[in-house]
C-alpha cells in the first residue's frame, strides 16, 4: 500500500533520507568534500531528470491524443511531486560551488562571460522555475479533469476542488492543457539542454558538443520512463487492478522504454562517431579520457553494457515487457547504469587525474538519501490525490 498511512514505508523513507543526509554531511566535513558534492550533483541531475521526464510522458500523451496510455498518465503525473525538492536541491548546490565548478580557476579564453557562478545560478534557477511552473500549471488542469467526481484527498486536493468550483468547463480545461503541454515540452527541451550545458558539459570548459543538450533531455525521458515503470509496477503489485493498469499498458510502456533506450544509444553514438572521425584534440581529449584511459574506460564499458546492451537484448523479447516485477528490476538496473553514466561525464572533470574510480560506499549511501526523498514525495502526492491510484477514463470534451 503506497501511502503515508503505511508506517513501514514511512519509516523506510525517513531512514533512507537520514542515511543519505548523514553520509553527505560526514563526507563534506571529511577530507574529500568534493567527492560528496560529486555524488550530490549526480543525484540531483538523475532524480530531477526522472521527475521531469516522468511528467513529460503525460504531456506527450495529451499532445498526441493517445488512447493506449490510460492510467499511465496518472503514474507519470505523480513524479511532479519531486519538482519542489529538485529546486531546493538545486539551491543547495550553491553551497558546493567551490567543488562542482572546476573552471572557476581556469583560463577560459573569453568564456567567462557565460561561465561565472552568479550568472549560472541565476539563469539555471530561473530556467528550472519556468519548467516546474509550467509543469505544475499543466498538472493543475490535468488533475481537475481526473478529480471530477472522485473521492476527496488531502489539503492540496481540497484547495484544488475550491479552485475549480462545482462543475468545471471541460473544454476550456482541455484547451489549457494543450497550451501548457506544448509549453512544458518546449521548456523541457530548452531547460534540460541548458542544465546539461551548464552543470555537465561546462565542467570541462574547453570541450563542446552541439548535441549534448539534446542528449541530456533524451536521456531524461529515458530515465523518466524507467521511473514510471518502477512506480507503475509498484502500484500494480500493491493495488492490483484497481489502478486500471493492464499488461497491455506495461507492454506499450516497455516498447516506449525500448525505443528511448535505442534513441539514447543513438545520440551517444552520433556524438562519438563525429568526434572520433574528426580527430580534433579539442573534442577528442574529453572522449579519450573517458573511454580509453583507465580508470574511466572500465566504467565506460560498464555503462555501455548496463544501460544499452543489457536492456536492448532483454527488451527485444515481447513477454518480459508485460512482467511488472521483472521490468521493475530491469528499470532499477538501468537507472543505476545511468547514474554511472553521469559519473562518467562529471567524474573526470571533478576528481581530475584520479588513479582509481572515485566511486565507493559513500556515494551509494548518499544516493539512498535521494531515493528516500523521491519515495516520500511520491507517496505524499498519492495521498493527496488518491484518484491517481484509481483509474476512471478521463472525461472527454463535450
Amino acid at each position: 500500500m503506497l501511502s503515508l498511512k503505511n508506517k513501514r514505508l514511512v519509516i523506510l523513507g525517513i531512514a533512507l533520507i537520514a542515511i543519505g543526509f548523514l553520509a553527505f554531511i560526514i563526507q563534506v566535513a571529511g577530507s574529500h568534500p568534493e567527492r560528496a558534492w560529486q555524488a550530490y550533483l549526480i543525484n540531483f541531475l538523475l532524480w530531477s531528470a526522472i521527475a521531469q521526464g516522468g511528467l513529460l510522458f503525460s504531456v506527450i500523451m495529451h499532445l498526441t491524443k493517445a488512447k493506449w496510455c490510460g492510467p499511465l498518465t496518472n503514474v507519470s503525473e505523480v513524479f511532479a511531486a519531486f519538482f519542489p525538492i529538485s529546486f531546493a536541491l538545486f539551491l543547495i548546490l550553491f553551497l558546493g560551488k567551490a567543488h562542482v565548478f572546476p573552471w572557476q580557476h581556469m583560463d577560459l579564453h573569453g568564456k567567462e562571460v557565460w561561465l561565472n557562478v552568479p550568472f549560472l545560478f541565476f539563469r539555471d534557477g530561473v530556467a528550472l522555475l519556468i519548467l516546474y511552473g509550467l509543469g505544475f500549471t499543466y498538472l493543475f488542469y490535468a488533475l481537475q479533469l481526473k478529480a471530477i467526481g472522485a473521492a476527496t484527498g488531502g489539503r492540496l486536493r481540497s484547495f484544488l476542488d475550491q479552485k475549480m468550483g462545482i462543475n468545471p468547463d471541460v473544454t476550456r480545461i482541455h484547451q489549457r492543457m494543450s497550451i501548457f503541454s506544448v509549453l512544458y515540452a518546449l521548456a523541457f527541451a530548452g531547460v534540460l539542454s541548458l542544465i546539461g550545458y551548464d552543470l555537465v558539459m561546462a565542467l570541462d570548459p574547453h570541450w563542446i558538443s552541439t548535441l549534448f543538450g539534446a542528449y541530456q533531455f533524451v536521456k531524461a525521458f529515458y530515465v523518466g520512463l524507467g521511473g514510471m515503470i518502477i512506480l507503475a509496477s509498484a502500484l500494480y503489485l500493491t493495488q492490483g487492478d484497481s489502478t486500471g493498469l493492464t499488461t497491455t499498458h506495461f507492454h506499450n510502456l516497455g516498447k516506449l522504454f525500448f525505443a528511448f533506450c535505442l534513441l539514447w544509444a543513438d545520440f551517444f553514438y552520433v556524438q562519438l562517431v563525429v568526434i572520433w572521425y574528426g580527430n580534433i584534440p579539442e573534442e577528442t581529449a574529453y572522449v579519450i579520457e573517458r573511454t580509453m584511459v583507465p580508470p574511466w574506460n572500465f566504467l565506460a564499458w560498464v555503462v555501455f553494457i548496463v544501460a544499452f546492451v543489457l536492456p536492448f537484448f532483454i527488451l527485444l523479447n515481447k513477454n518480459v515487457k508485460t512482467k511488472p516485477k521483472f521490468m521493475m528490476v530491469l528499470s532499477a538496473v538501468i537507472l543505476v547504469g545511468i547514474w554511472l553514466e553521469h559519473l562518467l561525464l562529471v567524474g573526470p572533470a571533478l576528481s581530475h587525474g584520479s588513479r582509481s574510480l572515485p566511486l565507493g560506499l559513500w556515494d551509494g549511501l548518499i544516493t539512498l538519501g535521494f531515493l528516500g526523498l523521491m519515495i516520500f514525495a511520491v507517496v505524499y502526492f498519492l495521498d493527496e490525490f488518491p484518484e491517481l491510484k484509481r483509474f476512471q477514463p478521463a472525461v472527454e470534451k463535450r
Partner: protein
Amino acid sequence: MKRRNFLKLASIGSLSFAASACTSEPDKTIFSLVQAPADMVTGSPTWYASTCRECPAGCGIIAKNREGRVIKVEGNPLHPINRGKLCIRGQAVVQGIYNPDRIKSPLLKKNDQWQPISFSQARSLIQEKAIQAAQSGSDKARMITELVGDSQLALFIHCLEKLNSKGPIAFEPLAYETLKTANREAFGIDGLPSYLMDKADCLVSLGADFLETWLSPVEYAWRFKAMHAVRTEAQGVFFHISPYQSLTGANADRWIACHPGREAAIVMGLIKATLEKGRGIGLPQSLIQSLRDASERYTTQATARMADIDPKDFESLKIRVLKAKTPLILGTGAGTASGAFQADLAANMLNLILDSDLTLFDFDRRHRVEGSARRSEVIEFFNSLSTDGVRLLLINNVNPAYALPPGSGIRKSLDSDRMFVVSFSNFMDDTTALADLIFPVCLPLESWDEYSGKNGMVSTLQPAMGRFTQAPHVGDLMLDVAFKDDRSVPDYKTWVMTQLHSKGVMREKNEWLKALQAGGVFPDVSPSVTRPRPVTGATSLFEPVDDTTGLFEPVDDTIERDPAKPVFIAVPSIRFFDGRGANRPWLGEIPDPLTKVAWQTPVLGHPESLKAAGAGHGEVVTIQTQQGQVEAIAYETRQVKPGVWVMGMGQGHIHFGRYAANVGINPLTLLPPKIDNMTGGPVFSTAVVALSATGDSKPLAHTDGSRIQHDRKIALSIPLDQMSANHDEKSAHEPSLTMEGFPFTLPLPEGYDPKRDFYPPHDHENYRWAMAVDLDKCIGCAACTAACYAENNIGIVEKDRIVEGREMTWLRVERYHDPENPEKITFFPMMCQHCDNAPCEPVCPVYAPHHSKEGLNNQIYNRCIGTRFCSQNCPYKVRRFNWFEWEWPDPMNLQLNPDVTVRSKGVMEKCSFCIQRIKVAHGVAKNEKREIKDGEVVPACVQTCPTGALTFGNLMDVNSRVRMLTQDVRAYQAMGYLNTKPAVIYLKKVVQKT
C-alpha cells in the same frame, strides 16, 4: 648541394649529342631517335650547362634533356651569379622554345601579307639587300640588337664593317641610365658595379627592385637574404624608399613611401646627418665642405616635408644608417619620376661618406647591362634611320615598338619603303610585325655562344637539344650575309672559340670542353682592386645649378599634393620583365606576388586615390595622360602612396602570340617620349591628366580570398628580441589544445600522445619525407611555383577559369597583410602538408588518396573518381581538381615531364613532394646499395628557391637538416591544432622594430 653538383656534372656537357646541333640541317625529329647519341639514355635525363638569356643578368642554367628534348631548366650550381638558383622567368625559358606561336620559317611581307619563304631564299634576299646597302654608301646597313655577349657583339661589328657601316646598337628598355650617369659623374666610371649586399648590415634602397628585375635579381636575392635572414648575431636591416611598395619593398623592414622623384631629399638629409656625425673620413675636405653646404637645408623636418614622409620614418632611418658598421645605399629602380639622377648622385656621395673605400662596390665585376645604349642614343638611332637614308635595318630580338613610348615615333621610322627591315625574331611581336622580312634564328638553348652577365668571367651556351627549325644562329647568318668565301671563320661556333682564345681565356680545346661542362670559366672571386675615387670635379657637383659645373638640382622645398593631379608610374614586372616574358603562359598564369592577380594588368591605387576617382576596388577606371588613355581595373591597396597610380609593365602587346596578344594593358603607352637631358634616360612616370571611373566593373582574376589571416595561426612571425636563446617563446601560450597553444607534434610515432590521439601511431619505412619552410627567408618571388608548373605538368587554365577559382597551382605563395599596418607582409608558401593524419584520406570512397609507407600523402590519379570530398575536407585547401581537359597546344606537349602523369579531366591532383624525384633517388641508392643521403632528394621548388627558404629531407634521420630545423625555436605547423600532424614545418618570420 655538394653531392648534387657532382651528380649533375657527371652528365653535363657531353657533346656527342649537341654536336649534331647547329649544323645547317635540322634533325628530322628531336625525340625518340632510332640511333640515340651515346649520352642519351632513354628514361634518364642528360644535363647541359648553358646561360639564361631571359634578362641581361646572365644566370647559369643547366637544361634537363629527356629523350632529346629539353623539359626543364635549373640553375647551374657552379655559376657564381645565381649559384644554382633561378627566378620565375628563368624557369619559363622552355616555354619560349616550345611556344606554339613560334615562327618556324622566314616570312616575307608582300603588300601587308606574310608569305612563308625558304631559309635560303630569305638568306639570299638579305645578302642582296646588304650588298645594295653597302654599295649605296656608308652606314646604310644598321643593326639594333638585344644585349649580346662580347663575341657576338664583335662579330656583328666585324660583319657590319664589311657592309661599311658602324656597329650595332644594343637596346635594353631598362638601361639604368641614371645609375650609370651618377657613377660617371661621381667616380668617372660610366658603368654599373655589382654590390656586395651580403656584406652589408644596413641596406637602403631608393626604389631599386633588386628582388624583381634590378640588374641581377637572383644574385641579389641570395645576397640580400645572406645579410637579412636571421642569424645568431644581429640581423641586417633593410629600408626601401619608393612611392610604391614593390616586392622588394614588401621584404623591407620598413617601407618609406616617399613622393615620386623626391628620394634625393632623403639622401641629402642622410648626408647632412652623417656629416654632422663627423663621418666621411678619407674624403677631400673640399668635397665634404661642398656637401655640407649643399645638404645644409635638409633638416629632418625639411626632408620629411620635401619627400612627403613621416619625420619618424626618417629619424629611424637616420639612426640605423648611423649605427650601421657597413651600410650600403642602393640607387633608384626603373620606376621612378625624374629626379632619380639626383638621388643616385647623392647616394654615391653618401656611400663615399659612409665608406670612402666603397668596399661593398665591385667595379671589377660590373654588370653587362651597362653595355646597353642609353635611351637617348636609341631614339637618336631611330631618328637617324631616315636622315641617314639607311637601306637595311637588322633587328635582333628586340621589341622597341612595344617598349618605347608611342610618342617616340618608332613605328613611323620603321615604316619606310626605302628601308628594308629584317627582324631576327622567333615571335611575331609588335616590332617584328612592322618588319619586311622575319628571319627566325636559333634560340639560346639551341645555340653555341658565350654571354657573361658580368665582366671578369665567361659564361657559355651550348645546344641543349636538337633544333625545331632550320633557323641558323644569328651569327652564322650574319657571316653569310656579310661574307662570301672571304670569311675568316667557317662558322659562328669557331668564331666564339677564337674570340675566347684571343682573349686568352682558354688556350686549347679541352679547356673549352671543361668550360662547357662547368657552364663557363669562373675565376675565384677576389676582392675588387678598382677603388674608385671621387672625380676631381666632384666638389663642384653640388654647386648651385645655375653655376655651369653644378649638376645636383636641390629638391624643391614645396610639394604640391593635389589628388586631382596624380602621378602614374609604370614599373618593371617580376613576371614579364620589360614584356619579353609575356608569351610564356606560366608567367601569365602565376599571379603577381603582391596583387595576386593573374593575366590582367590592374592599376594600383591608394584607397584615397580611388575615392578621389570615385572608383571602387575592381571597378574600371580610365587613365588619361598627355600621351593617351587606357581603361584598367582599379586595384585598391595601401602599398602605393596616395595620389600615385602604379601599373606593371609587360602586358598589352598588340602581337606576340595567343598568350600575350591583347592580354592586359601596356602602361608604356601612357608615357611621354621624354628623355632626361642629364642622363639620356627615359622617365617611367608621368602626370595623369584625367582619371575617372567608367562605372562598370570587371571581375579580377585574383587568387586570394582574403588579404589578412583573421587572427588565425597560419603565417606567424616572431619579434627579433624574442629570438635570443634564453627567451622561452613558448611561454606566450601555455600548451593547450586550442589553436593558440597547441604543441608542435612531429608526424612521427613520437608525435603521438595517448591523451589526445584516438588513433594508434603508425611507423614509416626508413623515410618520413618532410619539408621545412623558412618564412624569414621567403621573399614571395614565386620561382618555386614556376618550377612546380614545369616539373609537374600542371595545367594552364587562363583568366576566365581563374576568375571562377579554378587555378591549378600545387604550390601557392599566400600573401598576408598585417591588418594593423598593411605594408607589413608575410609570404607563406602553401603546398600539400602531407599530414600524418590527413583529413583528405579517409573520406575518399576508393582509397585514391592514402598514406604511403614513407609518409607521403599519395594521390592515385587513375583510381580517383572525382567526388572532390578530399578537397572539401582538406583544411589547407591545397588540392586541385581537373574541371576540364587542359590543353598543351602543340608543341608545348613536348615540354611535359615524362616522369609525371598528365591528369585527365575529373580527377583530383596536388603536390606530391616531387615523388618522381624521390623514386629516382631510391633507384640510385639501391644500385649503390645504400640509404638515400640527406639532400639527395630535391623537389623542384626547393631546388630553385633563390634564398634557400625551403629544405626537404627525411624526418626519421635525426641528423637531416630538416629534422634539425624542427628543433628551431621558430618551428611550428599551420593549423596544427587540428591534429593533422603536417609534414611541412614552417619557421616563423622574424620581424625587427625599426
